[in-house]
């Protein structure tokens, strides 16, 4: 038999609080503040206080003490707006904290607000050297967020789990592989390689330039290139202009029409995710609803394919943040593959090959690959796991030729 609600370490146990006070005394920071915050953190976990209230109550004190306030990271914007003052300052601050993706994921993994409060107290304010406390909100990095990926092709083994997971989440029709993994061979090589093709969310996206109605656009706040399903006229020019072949057109009715607006609509209220309606274009989105926090704090800064990958190949995060998951993975991988500069000093530090796909096309792709770029002579081959085995093959065309438009009603292959 278990308690349906287990209180955190003795709320009224004086020994516990003495021990905590001792720990706090050893830090450079205000012991009283720490104890107060810890008590309220326990009230929060017990449901006697909301997160927004907790954040608002201590914000000024935390700023005074630590110079910055990185709490409140898993609040939904609705919660924040409820508690916010007229000046919208709390909203601003909570938004501003989204830049620090790495530390946020760290907090989330530790499990909950109580841990957050405690690690705040024990760890001190992060990296802050200013003597004078600042009341300014935490600054976003100058370049803003730019969501992207580091995909380690050396780690990929073509299991296609990412492809299946993406399809499961987004409900894309058979044959519309927003995530696509190709096994390929070079003419001279013996081994097969893999190329993982997401949308590159280009910084200079040709698909956005050519769209005649502005349905394909780049989100200013974070660089995601998205398609607005309400505006798109289905001219397919984005598909024609994309050098990567990342676009998919909804030729018939979607297999699984999706109307869960919490997922299909981003924080601007625009319909940009899920299977497109008939006659409209869609592609890999990097999950804008997740990045906007609409599906919970745990899912900010990650994507479905990253979650599904068990080979440590896919790393999603803010490419402008050196501390983000993708950049840290690249740094760690490079550190693990050092070059021998004992004899020749001017060699590069590491032996790792990276590239951005088709970079010379001028698209400024947002995905960095670790591995070798496929040459113009490379050709796709069947991989160790086939698309048939994953139930992902599209027989729409043969169905159409045999049965005409009635192929729409066919079961998935």
């Amino acid at each position, binding site marked *: 038999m278990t308690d349906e609600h287990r209180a955190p370490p003795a709320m009224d146990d004086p020994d516990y609080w003495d021990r905590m006070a001792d720990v706090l005394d050893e830090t450079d920071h205000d012991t009283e503040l720490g104890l107060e915050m810890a008590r309220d953190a326990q009230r929060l976990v017990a449901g006697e206080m909301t997160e927004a209230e907790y954040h608002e109550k201590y914000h000024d004190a935390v700023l005074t003490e630590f110079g910055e306030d990185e709490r409140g990271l898993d609040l939904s914007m609705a919660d924040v707006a409820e508690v916010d003052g007229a000046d919208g300052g709390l909203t601003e601050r909570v938004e501003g904290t989204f830049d620090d993706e790495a530390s946020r994921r760290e907090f989330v993994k530790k499990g909950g607000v109580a841990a957050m409060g405690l690690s705040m107290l024990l760890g001190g304010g992060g990296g802050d050297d200013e003597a004078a406390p600042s009341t300014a909100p935490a600054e976003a990095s100058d370049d803003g967020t*730019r969501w992207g990926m580091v995909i380690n092709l050396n780690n990929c083994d073509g299991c296609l789990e990412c492809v299946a997971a993406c399809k499961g989440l987004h409900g894309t029709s058979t044959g519309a592989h927003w995530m696509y993994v190709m096994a390929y061979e070079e003419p001279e090589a013996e081994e097969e390689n893999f190329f993982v093709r997401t949308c590159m969310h*280009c*910084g*200079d*996206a040709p698909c*956005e*330039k050519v769209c005649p109605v502005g349905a394909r*656009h780049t989100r*200013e706040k974070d660089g995601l290139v998205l398609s607005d399903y309400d505006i798109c006229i289905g001219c397919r020019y984005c598909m024609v202009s994309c050098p990567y072949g990342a676009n998919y057109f909804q030729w018939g009715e979607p297999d699984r029409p999706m109307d869960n607006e919490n997922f299909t609509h981003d924080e601007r209220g625009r319909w940009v995710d899920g299977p497109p309606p008939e006659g409209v274009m869609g592609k890999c989105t990097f999950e804008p609803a997740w990045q906007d926090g609409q599906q919970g704090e745990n899912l900010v800064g990650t994507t479905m394919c990253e979650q599904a990958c068990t080979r440590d190949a896919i790393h999603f995060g803010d490419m402008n943040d050196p501390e983000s998951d993708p950049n840290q993975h690249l740094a760690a991988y490079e550190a693990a593959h050092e070059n021998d500069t004992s004899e020749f000093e001017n060699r590069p530090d590491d032996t790792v090959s990276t590239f951005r796909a088709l970079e010379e096309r001028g698209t*400024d792709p947002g995905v960095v690959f670790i591995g070798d770029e496929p040459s113009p002579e490379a050709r796709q081959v069947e991989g160790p796991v086939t698309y048939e085995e994953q139930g992902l093959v599209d027989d729409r065309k043969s169905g159409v030729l045999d049965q005409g438009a009635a192929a729409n009603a066919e079961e998935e292959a």
Partner: protein
Amino acid sequence: MIPLAGTASYTLPFVGPGTYLIFGVVLAPIYVMLVAWFLGYPRDAKKGLLGVAYLAGLTTSLWGGLFVATMVIKALFF
């Protein structure tokens, strides 16, 4: 959705090649034509206005007709 200037490096600025192409090059002959309509000899401003009325009326009829057709399609099929 409507960036007036690219604040981040990856947003499209408002002004692009099409601005110069359409308003500077493609429409230039039409600007010249309109000026010539009203400034040359023999001159008749009323006829110039008739021409302008035809231009505007045809554009409106073209897109208006297309609008009606697309609304019919929408009502019947979407």
